[in-house]
Every structure is written in structure tokens, then in C-alpha cells.
């Protein structure tokens, strides 16, 4: 690049820049921004002393930028450095008005000017785009400790719905201690035994956390949530995530998802109950509920009849792996033993759920206005843990209640 083209280079680049900024804001604003930028950049780029920007917005772009020809005596490398500085400062100054596309648009505009394309080969806008992204991420990093603070607070809040304060803190601390060897940033989280004015445990998240790379932070948060939730003995663990989301709020939720946390990928350990346990418990509960209204022995007959009837209507149903022996003696149920083939674990859970649902539906279908209370009693007999386990399996109680209700 010849020294004589320095004037041309810098003036055309500044003209394009003013045009691009003006398109996003206004010409007046673009001029003021450019004046400010050049003034700031002059401290590090002496070459910019040859440039002046006119304040008159009614002038044509090529009249706004005035470049003293003395600039042609300067090494072109210095001009490039100055141009880069101007670009960086402009982007920073524009904040939200400038983005990745602003740089690309600028590059395209510069490329359209043939002689400038050649002259700006050394101006690595691709790198600047990357720097811009990193810079934006860096600005996000400033909020990381605040975000982690909110995450921990929301987690405590959600667990607090089920456990006492002390236990909640213990569970979270245990998880942190376990994970901090891999996710070092977790060590910067301090949950004090003391509470604030509102009775909430004091949480301190060190600013050092802001140096953690986003993807590590995301992975760590996800693991922390996963481990903490799975440490609880709740059957309905999904409700903790629901409570967590609620407390975290939309903005922070967006932030952590933006960071890379995938709440829907958190692996919640499902019910500790095997299919066999669930089937047995559901049949036993059904027998008990029918027995409360008739007699225990008759209830066994009712459920046996239903089971056999459904088995006949669909021989491929997993229900064919279940049998009720009403001649056997059992301590838990009168004259009945329920057996489930171990092969049930190979059956599709959806099919098992459908089978159980059909049994309950058939049992309650002729009870008229007593049906809803029948289902309620059935659920009470099952207990929350088994109701959840059945729902996890795929039994849709709401659908049952809806069908019975209608």
C-alpha cells in the first residue's frame, strides 16, 4: 500500500463507518460518535491528529470527514492500527446498537470499494468479529457471580418447599463439595449458616467465578442441579425444577440457558419402584378400595375378572404377565396373591401404564357419581410416592378423572 493512499483509506473507511452508524441511529448521532471515538483514539493513535470530523449533519459524508494530506507521510501500518482502534471504540460506544452484523455490514461495505478491498487486506475484520463476540461474552462474565447467586437462591427456595432450611443447605453443600474438584468455580460459593433480615440464608458468590468459561459454568450448574435434586428422597423430583424455574425468573432463566444450561436435559432419577412393584401396588390398592365398598374377598374377584377380561381382549398386553391367585393365602391381602412375571421389565412401560389404566377405568366405569371419589380413594390408597411412580410410568390420572367426570 502506498503512502499516498492513506488519506483515501482512512477517509473512505470513516465515511462508511458514519453511514453504517447513521443507519442504526441518526446522522447527527453518527457524527457525534465518530468525533468522540477519534478524540479517544488519539491518545493511543497519534496518526488520528490529521483527522477532523465536521459537526454539520447536512454535509455529504465525503465532506464530513476531513483528512490532512500529512497523513500520507505516516507508515500505513499505523493507519491500520488506528482504523482498528476506531472500529473497536465505535462498537463499544454503540453498545447494543452495534452487533456482529454491524461488523459484517461494515466489512461488506468496505469490500464493495475495490481499491479499499486491496488496501484493507491487513485489516482483519474476521478477528475483530471474534473479538467482538468474546468482548460481549466478557461483559456477560461480569454478571456470572450474580447469576450463580440467583441460581443458588432459587435452588434453596425450591427445596425449601419440601425440606427444612438446615437440610436444604446440607444437601446443596454436599453437592458442591462433591462437584468442586471438577467444577472449581463451585468453591467460590459460600452459603452461610447465618440468615439475612428476611430469614434467608446468606449466600456469597466470589467474583473469581467471573473468570470461569461459560461452558464450564453451564456444565457445573447443570451438574449441581442434577446432583442436588437427585440427592433428595422426593418422588416428584420434577417439581423441584418447576419451583427452581419459578423462583429464578424468566430473565435469569434466559441467562442460564444462554450460558448453555439445559434444564430439560437434567437427568432426574426416576422412581425407585420397579414395574413389578407398581403393578402389585396398584392392584392391591384397587382391591382395597373396592373392598372398602364391598368385601375384601369380593374385591379380589372383581379385579381378577377385570384382569382376565382385559387379557382376553388383548393377548399381547403386558397384563398377560400378571395373575391373581384368589385361592392363595396372603398376609397382606385376603386370600389372594398377585404375581408378575419378571419378564415384565422387557414390556413397554407405556403398555404397562395403559394396562393399569384400563383396569382402573373398568373398575370405576359403572359407579356413576361415585366414580370420582373412587379414583380419589384409589390414589390415597396408593400414596403420593406410588401415584408419582405410576404417573412416571405413564398412567394418566387426569385423563381417568376427566373421562369419569364427563
Amino acid at each position: 500500500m502506498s503512502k499516498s493512499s492513506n488519506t483515501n483509506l482512512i477517509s473512505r473507511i470513516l465515511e462508511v463507518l458514519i453511514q453504517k452508524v447513521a443507519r442504526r441511529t441518526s446522522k447527527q448521532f453518527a457524527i457525534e460518535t465518530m468525533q468522540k471515538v477519534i478524540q479517544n483514539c488519539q491518545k493511543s493513535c497519534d496518526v488520528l491528529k490529521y483527522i477532523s470530523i465536521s459537526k454539520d449533519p447536512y454535509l455529504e459524508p465525503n465532506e464530513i470527514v476531513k483528512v490532512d494530506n500529512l497523513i500520507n507521510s505516516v507508515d500505513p501500518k499505523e493507519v491500520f492500527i488506528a482504523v482498528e482502534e476506531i472500529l473497536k471504540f465505535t462498537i463499544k460506544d454503540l453498545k447494543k446498537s452495534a452487533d456482529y452484523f454491524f461488523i459484517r455490514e461494515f466489512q461488506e461495505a468496505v469490500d464493495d470499494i475495490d481499491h479499499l478491498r486491496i488496501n484493507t487486506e491487513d485489516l482483519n475484520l474476521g478477528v475483530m468479529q471474534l473479538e467482538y463476540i468474546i468482548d460481549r461474552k466478557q461483559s456477560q462474565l461480569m454478571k456470572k457471580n450474580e447469576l450463580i447467586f440467583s441460581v443458588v437462591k432459587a435452588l434453596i427456595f425450591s427445596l425449601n418447599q419440601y425440606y427444612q432450611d438446615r437440610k436444604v443447605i446440607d444437601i446443596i453443600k454436599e453437592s458442591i463439595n462433591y462437584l468442586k474438584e471438577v467444577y472449581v468455580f463451585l468453591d467460590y460459593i459460600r452459603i452461610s449458616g447465618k440468615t439475612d433480615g428476611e430469614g434467608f440464608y446468606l449466600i456469597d458468590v466470589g467474583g473469581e467465578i467471573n473468570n470461569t468459561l461459560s461452558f464450564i459454568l453451564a456444565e457445573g450448574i447443570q451438574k449441581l442441579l442434577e446432583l442436588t435434586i437427585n440427592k433428595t428422597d422426593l418422588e416428584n423430583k420434577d417439581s423441584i425444577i418447576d419451583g427452581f424455574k419459578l423462583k429464578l425468573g424468566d430473565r435469569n432463566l434466559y441467562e442460564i440457558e444462554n450460558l448453555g444450561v439445559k434444564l430439560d436435559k437434567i437427568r432426574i432419577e426416576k422412581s425407585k419402584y420397579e414395574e413389578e412393584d407398581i403393578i402389585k401396588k396398584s392392584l392391591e390398592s384397587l382391591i382395597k378400595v373396592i373392598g372398602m365398598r364391598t368385601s375384601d374377598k369380593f374385591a379380589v374377584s372383581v379385579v381378577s375378572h377385570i384382569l382376565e377380561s382385559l387379557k382376553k381382549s388383548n393377548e399381547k398386553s403386558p397384563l398377560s404377565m400378571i395373575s391373581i391367585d384368589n385361592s392363595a393365602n396372603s398376609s397382606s391381602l385376603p386370600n389372594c396373591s398377585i404375581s408378575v412375571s419378571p419378564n415384565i421389565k422387557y414390556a413397554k412401560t407405556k403398555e404397562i401404564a395403559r394396562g393399569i389404566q384400563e383396569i382402573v377405568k373398568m373398575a370405576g366405569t359403572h359407579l356413576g357419581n361415585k366414580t370420582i371419589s373412587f379414583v380419589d380413594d384409589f390414589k390415597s390408597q396408593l400414596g403420593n410416592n406410588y401415584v408419582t411412580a405410576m404417573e412416571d410410568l405413564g398412567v394418566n390420572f387426569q385423563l381417568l378423572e376427566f373421562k369419569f367426570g364427563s
Partner: protein
Amino acid sequence: MSKKIMIVDDNPSIIFSVKEGLELIDKTFEVIGAESGEKCLELLKSGKLPDLILLDIMMPGMNGWDLFAELDKNSEWKKIPVVFLTAKTDVYSTGFGKIVSTDYIEKPFDLTDLKNRINDILKRENV
């Protein structure tokens, strides 16, 4: 060929009226009465197997539910069609009765209707 019907009811007057009525209007009926669930089982054990059982639910001692369960356990007895005699307001007897029993008849019942229902069932069950 006579059609053996067993009526299980703790009310002797119902047994009497069903026996007299059915045997009067249809000479092919032979009605056996059992005043309790226990008596029913006793008769069955003695080999008196009817073609159909009319079973009252609310009985002292062994009620209709438990008696049904006992019938259900026995491979021979479970083949006998059972008709529940239920009170109109007894949702559970009719509701669960529909699932396990052959049929149910609400009390008070008309004898001609009872006869027709029994004949229909016996025909259907190929008895």
C-alpha cells in the same frame, strides 16, 4: 328338563315368593332356597349344583360379596351364572356386579320380568 334355580336371601318371604311364583308361572323351574351364604355353600358342597344362582348382597354373616368370592374360587361353582339381587340405590352392587356377575336385578322385582331374565341368561349360557 327342569331348570334349577337357587335363591340366596336372608329374607324367607322373598325365597318363598320367588319359589312359589317362578314354579307357578313356569313349570320347568325348580327353585331351591338358601337363607344364608353358609347354607348356599353347604348345598353346593353336597352336590346340589343349580343352573343359576340369584344372590342377595346384603345378608348377615356371609354376605353376597363374600359368597360370590367363594363361588369364584371354585372351578365348578364359578361356571354357574350368578344374578345379583341389588337395592336400586346400591351403586357398588350394580357397578361391580356388572363386572363380575352374569346379570343384576334391582329389588323390588317383577316375577315375570325375573323369569324372562333368567330364561334369557340360561339360553345365552347354553344351560
